[in-house]
């Protein structure tokens, strides 16, 4: 029987051009989400080819199938349990040895597989010639040379994929052979595992048990504890023979096999003159010049994003609010009209005009820089600073995103390896002043107190991030984190892929944030329409007036700020009846108000993101913590400032 619907999974190291191939294959039929219950992005797409419908799953870019990171666990679970019809292993031809190490592990999982030997152009530039036919023979799987950015080999790759799935072509993939003393023990354990009908292949389980893989151990322990104790005993024997732990020996030998294949198939004649990308690398990671170059790049990025965002935001705002009279003509200015316009439509407008103009360029530049390789250099330079708050260099990227909008910042924490790092990074991100917060700082303190005070608030925020980050790092259990990251060669980013990545991430943001912004707007508008705002403001007055020394109306504005931070300022203008804030507030009040607005809560869209990524409990904890923290801090600041002014 032939079916015409297949599933193909793409697997490979990070930065091998996997996302380019994914985009070449699936075009605009993509869906970005999370793996069920996990902080890991899942990219899925569909393609139609010669009458077949093929689901393509883009597995995370990883280097191994152990359990160090959630990505690795998800990938191996998916391949072994969900069993895609075919795995396409995407390999960077210019870093063959490391890539083959992963290939060997995929082969151990025993699913049908073909290889896309990608970035052949890059390999050529580095003077690496690869005999892919020889590799095919050595690995026992089809190997198709590709240059994904130009589309070379993609058609052949698909044809081969169909051929393998359809004809069930008898391929005999290589089984990496370990030393005799190890093979004997693998054999012994495999035989025991075979009887248990475990979801993974027996040989693979045996190898993992010898590697002391805790996840596999846990699951086998439930089925037959005897297997685990036997494996432990055998692992100790190997340790005695080699003087290294058994997992070290197995990893070493696997790398040895990879290295041997790499040596046999490639011929390297390195170029005499250091190529441009090497010189750029040396300059951008230079001990002295690296930092000013980074500072200028980051400032330039921020400047262009805020210029673009500000301009576009204004333009869109004018356009949408220009529609208000037309709307009122249709719906009237009664309660229903007010609710629909003020609640629903203004919510949408707010999302469109405030968030999108900043997020769009942010995502674009982020993916552009990531693909080029510069982000990993920034992570390299920033590593020791990020270590001060218990994170490492990679965390600089979500933090930077957070300056545009906290939502993509929180989503960006997925690049961190462990759950602890993710949570910590996300917590830090929620404290970062986003574009909307910047509007408050500049529009209130910057315009009516002094630009120095605005700057001071920024610096205070950074100090707070530093302190709280450090505290949170100490409070959270787990191993201190450390950076280990590949810095792939600089390359020209593939524009189409970058654009698609930007677009689909933007859609993810819209789907997540907009419903909440709309519902939130509606609720608050409802409260306003039934005249509950003032009573609420009065209830809040012990905090706002007595403790923080602010006018009563600020209670209302802070409620609105939960929807979107910049609403605190807009509502302040509405309630004061003027945009000359100096008429309604003293400089001290403005500073305290801004300080509180900056920190008092992640906006509703950010909270939603936290819930999605980390669950209710953690999201709620962060939210409540920040409310309490901001109020305490604001009150102290108020009393201190009264001494100065």
């Amino acid at each position, binding site marked *: 029987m032939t079916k015409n619907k297949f599933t193909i999974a793409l697997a490979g190291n990070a930065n091998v051009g996997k996302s380019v191939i994914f985009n070449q294959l699936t075009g605009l039929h993509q869906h970005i989400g999370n793996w069920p219950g996990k902080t890991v992005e899942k990219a899925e797409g569909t393609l139609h080819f010669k009458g077949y419908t093929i689901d393509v799953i883009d597995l995370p870019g990883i*280097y*191994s199938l*152990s*359990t*160090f990171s959630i990505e690795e666990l998800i990938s191996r679970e998916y391949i072994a349990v969900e069993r895609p019809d075919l795995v396409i292993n995407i390999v960077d031809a210019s*870093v*063959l*040895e*490391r890539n083959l*190490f992963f290939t060997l592990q995929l082969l151990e999982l025993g699913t049908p597989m073909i290889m896309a030997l990608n970035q052949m152009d890059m390999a050529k530039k580095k003077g690496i010639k690869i005999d892919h036919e020889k590799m095919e023979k050595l690995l026992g799987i089809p190997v198709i040379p590709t240059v994904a950015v130009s589309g070379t080999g993609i058609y052949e790759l698909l044809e081969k994929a169909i051929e393998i799935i359809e004809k069930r072509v008898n391929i005999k993939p290589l089984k990496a052979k370990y030393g005799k003393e190890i093979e004997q023990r693998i054999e012994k354990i495999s035989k025991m595992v075979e009887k248990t009908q475990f979801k993974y292949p027996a040989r693979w389980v045996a190898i993992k048990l010898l*590697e*002391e893989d*805790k996840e596999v151990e846990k699951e086998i322990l439930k089925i037959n504890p005897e297997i685990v104790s036997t494996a432990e005993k055998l692992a100790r024997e190997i340790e005695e023979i080699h003087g*290294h*732990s058994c*997992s*070290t020996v197995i*990893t*070493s030998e696997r*790398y040895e096999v990879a*290295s041997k294949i*790499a040596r046999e198939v490639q011929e390297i004649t390195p170029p005499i003159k250091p190529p441009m990308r090497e010189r750029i690398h040396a300059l951008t*990671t230079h*001990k002295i010049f*690296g930092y000013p170059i980074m500072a200028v790049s980051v400032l330039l990025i921020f400047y262009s994003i805020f210029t673009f965002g500000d301009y576009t935001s204004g333009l869109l705002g004018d356009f949408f609010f220009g529609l208000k009279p037309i709307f009122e003509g249709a719906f009237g200015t009664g309660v229903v009209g007010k609710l629909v316009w003020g609640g629903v439509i203004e919510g949408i407008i707010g999302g469109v005009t405030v968030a999108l103009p900043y997020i769009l360029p942010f995502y674009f530049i982020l993916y552009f820089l990531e693909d080029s390789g510069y982000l*990993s250099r920034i*992570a*390299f*330079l920033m*590593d*020791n600073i990020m*270590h001060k708050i218990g994170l*490492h*260099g990679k965390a600089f990227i979500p933090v930077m995103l957070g300056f545009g909008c906290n939502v993509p910042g929180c989503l960006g924490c997925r690049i961190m390896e462990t759950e602890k790092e993710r949570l910590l990074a996300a917590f830090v991100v929620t404290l970062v002043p986003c574009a909307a917060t910047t509007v408050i700082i500049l529009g209130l303190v910057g315009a009516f107190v002094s630009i120095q005070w605005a700057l001071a608030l920024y610096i205070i925020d950074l100090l707070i991030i530093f302190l709280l980050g450090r505290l949170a790092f100490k409070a959270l*259990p787990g*191993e*201190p984190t*450390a*950076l*280990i*990251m*590949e*810095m*792939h*060669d600089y390359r020209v980013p593939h524009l189409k892929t970058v654009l698609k990545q930007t677009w689909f991430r933007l859609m993810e943001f819209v789907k997540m944030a907009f419903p909440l912004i709309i519902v939130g707007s509606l609720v608050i508008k409802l409260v306003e329409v039934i005249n509950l705002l003032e009573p609420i403001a009065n209830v809040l007055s012990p905090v706002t007036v007595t403790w923080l020394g602010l006018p009563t109306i600020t209670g209302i504005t802070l409620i609105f700020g939960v929807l979107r931070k910049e609403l605190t300022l807009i509502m302040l203008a509405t309630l004061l009846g003027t945009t000359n804030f100096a008429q309604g507030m003293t400089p001290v009040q403005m500073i305290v108000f801004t300080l509180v607005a900056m920190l008092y809560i992640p906006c509703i869209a950010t909270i939603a993101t936290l819930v999605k990524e980390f669950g209710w409990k953690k999201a709620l904890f962060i939210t409540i913590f920040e409310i309490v923290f901001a109020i305490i801090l604001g009150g102290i600041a108020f009393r201190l400032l009264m001494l100065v002014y």
Partner: protein
Amino acid sequence: MMELRLSNLRDGESGIITSIGVSRGRGRGEGRRARRGWGFRKRLEDMGLTPGTKITVVKSAPFNGPLEVYIRGSRLAIGRGMAERIFVEVKR
């Protein structure tokens, strides 16, 4: 030949990895502690830092920043704390 920590290598110097020291950790109970050390070492080994492999320090970032190393035909950034736990044999 002498054994040094990777973090003590000079820029441009190469060595052969001999072993990876396991962290003392801040574990709660033995089991967890053992697992932590395992994860740390496994991570490095999976990235190709297995005993017997040649590793070259290209340069290190200032202020105790990470190291840029060259190993198995690729370039890695390794945090200072990690590099301190990697032992290499160097000709000096």
